[in-house]
């Protein structure tokens, strides 16, 4: 049982971490509560399914194409819908909800409401310290950790990362220092949508693909982001591992835990918020008054 908890906890945590980092970055840089974030995760999975199963493309190329397609789509959504509304925070909020519903319904229209299974792209299992993990699940871990490392490198060791951190810290001052905050926002949106799409692509062969697959991760991701502190990348990663392992422990160790996993994870979030309203690593934003 401990093996199960470790493996499934690690896998779900790393997927959640990919999603939560993207959400956190968009919130930090553009102050958008992007409800449609996990919709991009769903779109990534569907696009991957289309390319892999319906068109029969090699899985690595299909994955890359799916991520690229979703990234392009996210940029189009941002340019066409979010940017004209930027002044009106509440309008931005419901336009992201509307976008998510729109994507859900479009997928329902094109693919139907039933579960789609993606055939395993690789067989066999790897054995680490006596615990065997199917290759397909191992790929999730590897891709997630590579992407986490890449995000860390991007944020801390490149000029774009510096600009993203500066903009998240103080938009106006970053603008005055000569950074083009619109381009920074665009780059952030593209990067986080790509992270969500990558998460969708890697989990698609393991989980099932259906038009409502964005709702469950959405809530967990929001809990993680609030737990870790809105806008904090470090907090998102740590929050993802806390929530991921709590869910795994609840599922495997508590009777009827599969129903309760969400409730337990969310209760932890509420409890942390009561003690620390800004989350674990909350960035204290200047008072927006």
């Amino acid at each position: 049982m401990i093996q199960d908890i470790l493996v499934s906890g690690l896998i779900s945590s790393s997927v959640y971490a990919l999603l939560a980092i993207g959400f956190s970055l968009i919130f930090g840089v553009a102050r958008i509560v992007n409800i449609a974030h996990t919709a991009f995760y769903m779109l990534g999975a569907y696009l991957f399914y289309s390319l892999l199963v319906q068109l029969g493309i090699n899985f690595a190329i299909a994955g890359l194409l799916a991520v690229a397609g979703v990234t392009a789509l996210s940029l189009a959504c941002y340019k066409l819908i979010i940017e004209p509304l930027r002044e009106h925070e509440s309008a931005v909020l419901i336009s992201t909800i509307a976008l998510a519903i729109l994507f859900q319904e479009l997928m329902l229209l094109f693919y139907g409401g039933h579960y789609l299974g993606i055939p395993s792209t690789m067989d066999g299992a790897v054995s680490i310290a006596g615990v065997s993990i199917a290759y397909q699940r191992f790929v999730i871990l590897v891709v997630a950790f590579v992407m986490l490392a890449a995000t860390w490198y991007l944020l801390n060791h490149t000029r774009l990362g510096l600009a993203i951190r500066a903009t998240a810290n103080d938009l106006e001052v970053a603008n005055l220092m000569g950074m083009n905050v619109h381009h920074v926002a665009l780059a952030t949106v593209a990067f986080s949508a790509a992270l969500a799409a990558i998460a969708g692509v890697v989990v698609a062969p393991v989980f099932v693909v259906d038009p409502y697959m964005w709702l469950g991760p959405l809530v967990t991701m929001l809990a993680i982001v609030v737990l870790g502190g809105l806008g904090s990348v470090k907090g998102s990663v740590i929050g993802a591992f806390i929530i991921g392992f709590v869910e795994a422990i609840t599922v495997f160790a508590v009777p009827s835990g599969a129903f309760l996993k969400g409730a337990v994870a969310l209760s932890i979030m509420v409890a942390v918020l009561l003690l620390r309203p800004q989350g674990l690593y909350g960035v204290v934003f200047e008072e927006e008054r």
Partner: protein
Amino acid sequence: MYRLRRLWVQLRTEVLVLPSRALVLAWALVLLALPLAYTDAYVLRILTLMCLFAIFAASWDLLAGYSGQVNFGHALFFGAGAYASALLTLKLGMPPWLTVFAGTAVAALLGVAVGALCLRLRGSYLSLATLAFPLIAIGLLFAFPDFSGGELGFSGLPRLINGVVPNYYLAVVTMLVLVFSLWLLADSKFGLVLHAIRDDEVAARASGINTPRYKVMVFAIAAACAGLAGGLLAHYMRVTGPFTLETALSFQVVIWGIFGGVATIYGPVVAVFILYPVTEWFGGFQAFGERRLLLFGVIVLLVLLYMPRGLAPWVRDRIETLCPRCKQRSAAWKSHCRHCSAALAPTDRPRASGPGQA
């Protein structure tokens, strides 16, 4: 006779003089008179549901629009009202007239609890934390199916009254009374305090306002209204289930609120009365049956691109002008303010800053 004449004068000077108020009056009269002329059971059923959802949406607006506590889990109160009422009716055999109010009380208590828990949270943190509460409730319902009915919930609840038209009048009258009282409340000193809390909580506290008490109170009031709507809906549809707590319902009420225009009370009601029949009507077509949510999303996006502050404020700005001197509204075609007779410039339409920034 004197009272009648006084009433007529008041009606003429306070209601008919403003096109928006005249529209609201006409809408209420049409709603009340409709069954006299038209008794199609399907249409009345849709209207009944719309009235119940209008109460729900208006209660969200009091909380989110006025006090700025943008609640993403408003379905919790709706579901609490529905479940509490259903449980008391089915397990204890109490009459539904009583249990609906018991459900309202349970929802109000939950409102106090959630409000107290969220006192230290603000802005996006509050929105995202409140999203969690109905989901925790759903998890508990699924974990104890013997008590809660599990995934199916309860069916076969007794109706409050029988017949299509009496049920319709019950919903319409409840809706009109509740929405009008919410509007009065929002226009009173209480509403003013809520505006102050939303715009600047620190300044409100510095002015001697006990902001935690007001925040918990507004949570309780909004929760009670939502719970009443939930209880009435459960007894009208004769079923209750996890659908009353779903995230989709919480998002739906956010969409109604922002689409109609926040911090207006009537805005969300307008949104329900437009969006609900539109989606229902599209659902009637065979070709659209499966796609009504799709169209719903497209409509919301298009309207927002052109009226980002919501539908009701947009319409009101077109048919009424704000007096630059006394800040009272007059009909757009008047050349002078109806209160202080200051000249109104029709082209120079002042744009009040949109309230309700999350």
